[in-house]
């Protein structure tokens, strides 16, 4: 029995059914949850999704591999390089190609910048939901710098599509690398600033500690991933356990907390921002030279200037643009650690230049049933805190 059929109040019951969303500022997109309230306590929470369904998986089955990449940006729109990378890694695994070191290093820089940007959006909106307005403005200030860096390298502020099959779209420029260097020198003081505003703030602690707790077993069983899982005491980061793109070469720690409440998820993400910054610093210190995309022009476009002098390059260019890459028959899945958890594309290829099936493993989608389970027994004011702490992005939930 849905809320819309019966009106918001069903008076024949002791409990009250309360509709929240889809157009609610604290549901982070068009997420709707139907709460059954006993006074001020949530008895059951029933999620309702699908308001942002755009059929990207169906569309992907009718587009060439290269054309799918811009659509993956729109899935998790706060972490586009992560989605690009997940799609490219799966495709490259089917193709069986090796990626040059410089391309891997540039991919890592983009992904870690995106992780910081995504966590900044999370921190800003989450704190705003709970009532801390200032943090929101500070976070947006720093995120703006990352978006400017995105624009400089890819021409686009958010939907970068920078990571391509076989490498990256464009080589790094001197000024871009200098810009990143400036940012990572500026950033640590700012993280300390956010922490000064929140970590020991008694109002913040009252609103977050001990609320929305999940034990280790529950978190695993409900398929939470990423920071939400690590806050419950599970030391699992795909960058460490199944390294990709050269993450095994960098030293970083995986922050783990044990209580699994909103506060611990906050602590994990704050520490992750520091670690991401440290990874970027290590990449910049040892940035390899060499090609930034696969030199074999069967997969990536030949350099623009060679088109005037090399017949072979011209043929490759024509074939790649008019026909695209043909991927050998098979199916594969490569998980990566996105900003919200395990992201990966399951790709089934039938041997043509169009994928036969593309399925995104979206961490937000998998976390929603568990998130609604957490709400049970909480006060209604904590519901927005719980939604914020899981950090859902509806673009990848509804796809």
């Amino acid at each position, binding site marked *: 029995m849905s809320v819309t059929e019966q009106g918001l109040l069903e008076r024949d019951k002791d409990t009250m059914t309360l509709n929240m969303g889809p157009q609610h500022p604290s549901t982070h997109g068009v997420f709707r949850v139907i709460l059954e309230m006993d006074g001020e306590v949530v008895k059951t929470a029933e999620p309702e999704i699908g308001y942002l369904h755009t059929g990207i998986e169906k569309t992907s089955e009718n587009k060439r591999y290269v054309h799918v990449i811009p659509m993956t940006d729109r899935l998790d729109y706060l972490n586009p390089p992560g989605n690009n990378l997940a799609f490219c890694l799966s495709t490259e695994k089917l193709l069986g190609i090796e990626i040059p070191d410089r391309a891997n290093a540039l991919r890592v820089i983009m992904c870690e910048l995106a992780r910081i940007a995504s966590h900044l959006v999370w921190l800003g909106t989450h704190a705003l939901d709970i009532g801390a307005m200032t943090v929101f403005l500070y976070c947006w200030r720093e995120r703006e710098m990352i978006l400017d860096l995105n624009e400089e390298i890819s021409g686009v502020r958010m939907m970068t599509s920078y990571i391509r099959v076989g490498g990256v779209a464009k080589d790094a420029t001197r000024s871009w690398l200098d810009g990143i260097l400036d940012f990572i020198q500026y950033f640590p003081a700012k993280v300390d600033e956010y922490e000064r505003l929140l970590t020991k703030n008694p109002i913040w602690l009252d609103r977050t500690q001990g609320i929305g707790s999940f034990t280790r077993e529950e978190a*695993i069983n409900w398929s939470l991933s990423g920071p939400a899982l690590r806050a419950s005491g599970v030391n699992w980061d795909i960058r460490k356990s199944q390294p990709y793109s050269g993450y095994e070469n960098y030293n970083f720690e995986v922050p783990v907390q044990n209580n699994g409440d909103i506060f611990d998820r906050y602590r994990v993400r704050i520490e992750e921002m520091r670690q991401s910054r440290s990874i970027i610093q290590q990449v910049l210190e040892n940035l390899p030279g060499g090609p930034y995309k696969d030199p074999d022009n069967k997969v990536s476009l030949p350099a623009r200037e060679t088109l005037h002098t090399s017949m072979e390059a011209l043929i490759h260019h024509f074939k790649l643009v008019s026909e695209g890459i043909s991927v050998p028959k098979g199916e594969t899945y490569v998980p990566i650690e996105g900003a919200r958890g395990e992201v990966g594309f399951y790709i089934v290829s039938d041997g043509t230049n169009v994928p036969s099936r593309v399925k995104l493993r979206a961490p937000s989608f998998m976390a929603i049933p568990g998130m609604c389970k957490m709400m049970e027994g909480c006060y209604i004011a904590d519901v927005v805190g719980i939604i914020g702490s899981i950090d859902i992005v509806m673009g990848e939930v509804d796809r």
Partner: protein
Amino acid sequence: MTSEEIVKKIKENLADIVQNTDLPQGDAVIFVAPDSLQSVAEFLKNDADLKFDYLSDVRGVDYLLEEREPRFEAVYQLYSIDNQHSIRLRVGIEEDNPSVPTVSNLWKGALYPEQELFDMFGINVEGHPTMERLIMPKDWEGFPLRKDYPLTTETVAFSHNRDFKSELVKSKPPTR
């Protein structure tokens, strides 16, 4: 455990249940019939060496265009947090009355992707508590991710084509 060891262990213990095994690009993949999914899943979760305690994803695939039997497939991606290894279970599902037992009794995380399996492919998941539309509207007809469900465009109605109805659009084959 490496993928080879996982496959070997499963072959030894479930020789009569597992239909086939494979190691594409180094991933462990096993093929299971829908009837034996429950027992295989239980073994994978509870065995001390394997201990697949984390369900990454469940996805459906429609192999209509490849003309092979069975037409549908449900693919389960499992991961073991303690042992750091993964496996893929491929369950072939017949075209007539497609159905597969639920694994949400073992992994609660399967609730949503299994419901999506029904929503997008019309595969009935037996034992699932809410077998209804998840992403598509409640009154939607057809199963969008099936290969015989055409990908069409919606013609924008202007004054010059106000009477243009979707007959033409419906008859259009999937675009490539």
